[in-house]
């Protein structure tokens, strides 16, 4: 099992969600985060006081998938979340040691 974490541009969330259900992903967790990579921030101006804001709003998607579909999932995210411009985001793939479904106590791939 793999835990796939993707940091994407917020407006791409719906596209990515659609693409993920097409490749068989049944559940995911979404958080609003801030961050930066190579994409620059912006400046804000309030009554002459200028503030440079380095952090940009992003969305983090986490989903646990079986090893079989992991590669397809990554590919789907890359297709759906990409715009070709700086700031499209990154995907992290980690090995997942255990997954448990709280309601039934199922473990492993059955819990995904």
């Amino acid at each position: 099992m793999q835990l796939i974490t993707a940091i994407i541009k917020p407006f791409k969330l719906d596209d990515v969600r659609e693409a993920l259900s097409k490749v068989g992903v049944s559940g995911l967790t979404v958080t609003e985060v801030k961050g930066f990579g190579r994409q620059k921030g912006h400046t804000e101006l309030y009554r002459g006081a200028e503030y440079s804001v380095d952090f940009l709003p992003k969305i983090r998607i986490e989903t646990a998938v079986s090893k079989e579909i992991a590669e397809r999932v990554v590919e789907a995210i890359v297709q759906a979340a990409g715009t070709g411009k700086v700031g499209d985001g990154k995907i992290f793939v980690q090995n997942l040691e255990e997954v448990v479904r709280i309601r039934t106590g199922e473990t492993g791939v059955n819990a995904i």
Partner: protein
Amino acid sequence: MKPIDRIFIPGAALLLACLPGLALAEDSLSSGDTAWMLTSTALVLFMTIPGLSLFYAGMVRAKNALSVMMQCFAITCLVTLLWTIYLYSMAFGDDVGGLVGNLGKAFLAGVGVDTLSGSIPESVFSMFQLTFAIITPALIVGAFAERMKFSAMLLFMALWVTLVYAPVAHWVWGGGWLSEKGVLDFAGGTVVHINAGVAGLVAALVMGKRRGFPQQPMKPNNMVLTMVGAGMLWVGWFGFNAGSELAADGTAGMAMAVTQIATATAALTWMFLEWIKHGKPSALGMASGAVAGLVAITPASGFVGPVGALAIGFAAGLICYLMVVKVKGALGYDDSLDAFGVHGVGGFVGAILTGVFADAGFGGAGLEDGVTIAGQVVTQFIGAGATIVYCGVVSFIILKLIDAIIGLRVSDEEEEMGLDLVLHDEQGYNLR
């Protein structure tokens, strides 16, 4: 009535109305005037709670948003109490030496259901004036936001309205020496705005900058609230300016008109200046310009015409913009929400220009016979100058006194945590 008489109505009529036993031409109740003044009183109170409260709350950091609203609300309550007990009397009671009123009206003595002040009940007049006595200290909050102890703030405000506001109000509106000199201040350019602005500047200097200012970002936490507050201030200001005529008549109508004209002009001036200078117009800039225009037209509102309003609005937008955006940064002091930059400077600009645009040549109500524009401008300088000096000195003394007794500022750690939590055990926002 001739234009000349219009100028002395605020000062002279009030003085005469306070003297008992005199039969006047206008001492029967006008229900039209009374209806308007009841409304104006509500409008001006609305300017403080919640107009100014929201305007300020949106501009501070989230952790201090509630504290600002708490200060404005508490000031409203405190000043109301003091006004009832003795402040009304000090401002509008029988004159003592041209400097202050006596205590003949303490506890609103003599103000009964049928007691009149001009053509309106004296109760209404007193409450209307109270709303001015409330908003003036509330404006000062903007200068020391995010770092003053609540207890020190209450004590400061109690002393300040007693030792500064009431006397100055008496000088200008209660029959004191400035009205004798012929100073023109229709709705409070000196009494309210120069007073608040100068006290704010002194407080900002005495208390020092916020921790981390100016390196640390201190962005407005809720510009939406600030814009809401700005709109409320604009609408409420019709009560402030047009209501200062104390009657529902042509002068009130013109006061409303010039208020609208000057405010819009000032807002656009600031907005376009920002657009030119920084490449984009901002909401805060436009709202700040509007407030600057409202402030500047305040002393002039009963005396100038539309052309004067255009000029005053433009001047206020330009000068306050320069003051807040350029000069304040260069001088380095932390007047957090620009009480001095907008209210002090705007009030001063308006006070002086009143002397110019009150002249009939500019469509104004006309200066007194024998008074030239230059002469009136000098008189305006005297009024503004006296207020600045008196307010500055007394505010400084009060602040130093309180600092010595209980301390003015919260500790560094408290300032870091945020006043909402530290001073009130509350959070303004509990959003998640």
